[in-house]
């Protein structure tokens, strides 16, 4: 059944309205997470006045959902003034933070300002593991204390657990911790390449075997049989589907005012320092191109059995070199779910066999 939010998103896409914007107010951070895809030096962040003007423009453009993130957003001294202005303009505000700067006073202010949800990254229930990932001793204890302050204010908290080699066995305990704290739990098994294009961070990804295990964990995916079912038939309707909401009803704005289709899709589409937000949203050649792409336009993925059920991220595909190409991380997930290799995997195997037949083909002896 379609929820009201899904219906609203569909209507926003139909009307060309940017219903949701992710705004990073800074890329500076007080943690140095091993998997982070951002540069932390301040290269000239938007001022409060620039952000206030942007918020006004976004409200006029129809943005309702505003994700404020970073970097660590609380490193901005004016963060609460930004949130206050956003709430005056009737945005639904979600705050993504490591929370280590949140004490009782900040938690109370976040509640008073009417923030909808606070999302906090917790990598492990074990301080040694979490703190090694953030590279900040004591960070787990501080983040958990902050979550308790936030919950004591009645705020909704989401604990986000990014899976990587270092913490791959810890997610069940983090989920249990979230339940004890009255927080919702979300898990993300995808490591993103660095925004500068460096793909070395991908070495932190969990193994295929570990991904298989996560995909078959009922506590994470619900009905395993349904979640891991073979993909359905590829129909004309499937081939007409949009890849995701990036550029259609959502976009990203960097701390420097650059607009991208999504935080994971760093295709520069305009700067709010030289253009109005609505002009970028409506007329940017890059966003316009993104909007033209349907599943049938994807040379490899349109031939793949998974095309209708794959979580293919066009941003990750873009970072692999082609926004119309496959996203290998999502190919891995589709394969892990169903055991059925993707068209991209088969293509790579064939290319490998052609390049080195003695290694790829089994011996006849």
């Amino acid at each position, binding site marked *: 059944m379609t*929820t*009201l*939010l899904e219906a*609203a998103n569909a*209507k*926003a896409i139909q*009307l060309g*309205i940017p*219903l949701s914007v992710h705004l990073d107010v800074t890329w500076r951070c007080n943690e140095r997470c091993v998997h982070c895809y951002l540069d932390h030096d301040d290269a000239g962040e938007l001022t409060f006045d620039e952000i206030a003007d942007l918020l006004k423009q976004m*409200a006029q453009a*129809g*943005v*309702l*959902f505003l994700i404020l993130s970073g970097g660590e957003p609380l490193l901005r001294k004016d963060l609460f003034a930004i949130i*206050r202005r956003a*709430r*005056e303009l*009737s*945005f*639904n*505000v979600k705050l993504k933070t490591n929370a280590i700067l949140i004490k009782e006073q900040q938690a109370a202010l976040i509640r008073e*300002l*009417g*923030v*909808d*949800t606070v999302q906090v990254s917790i990598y492990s229930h074990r301080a040694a593991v979490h703190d090694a990932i953030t590279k900040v001793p004591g960070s787990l204890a501080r983040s958990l204390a902050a979550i308790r302050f936030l919950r004591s204010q009645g705020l*909704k908290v989401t604990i986000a657990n990014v899976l990587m080699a270092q913490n791959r066995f810890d997610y069940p305990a983090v989920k249990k911790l979230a339940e004890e704290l009255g927080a919702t739990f979300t898990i993300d098994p995808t490591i993103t390449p660095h925004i500068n294009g460096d793909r070395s961070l991908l070495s932190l990804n969990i193994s295929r075997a570990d991904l298989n295990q996560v995909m078959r964990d009922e506590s994470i995916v619900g009905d395993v049989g349904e979640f891991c079912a073979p993909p359905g038939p590829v129909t004309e309707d499937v081939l007409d589907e949009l890849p995701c909401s990036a550029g259609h009803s959502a976009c990203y704005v960097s701390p420097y005012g650059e607009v991208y289709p999504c935080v994971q899709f760093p295709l520069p589409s305009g700067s709010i320092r030289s253009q109005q937000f609505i002009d970028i949203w409506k007329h940017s050649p890059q966003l316009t191109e993104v909007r033209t792409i349907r599943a049938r336009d994807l040379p490899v993925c349109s031939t793949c059995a998974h095309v209708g059920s794959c979580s293919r991220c066009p941003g990750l595909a873009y970072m692999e070199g082609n926004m119309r190409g496959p996203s290998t991380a999502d190919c891995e997930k589709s394969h892990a779910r169903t055991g059925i290799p993707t068209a991209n995997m088969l293509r790579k195997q064939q290319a490998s066999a052609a390049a080195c037949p003695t290694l790829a083909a089994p011996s006849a002896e």
Partner: protein
Amino acid sequence: MSETYIKRSRDTAARMLGDEMIIMSVKDSRVFTLNPTASIIWGAADGITTLREIVARDLVPEFEIDTEAAYQDALELVGQLAQEGILMVTDHPIPAEQP
């Protein structure tokens, strides 16, 4: 005859989406959509203007409807929104406050 004053709850977020108002409750994440008529009332719910004034000023000229019938419908609507916790309804003006 007492007047009715209405004001949007501070624990909401709202935006026009086409001809509908989409409202989200911060407290429990419930989502509401209002039709064009109700959206006008929501947009005018500043805590200072009486419901009777809103109906006469914003609804009657727009939809060419009977004032009293429209007012009764509006009273019913704001009662429902108050029950949902997203609109304050009182018999006195509600002063402005920071969100």
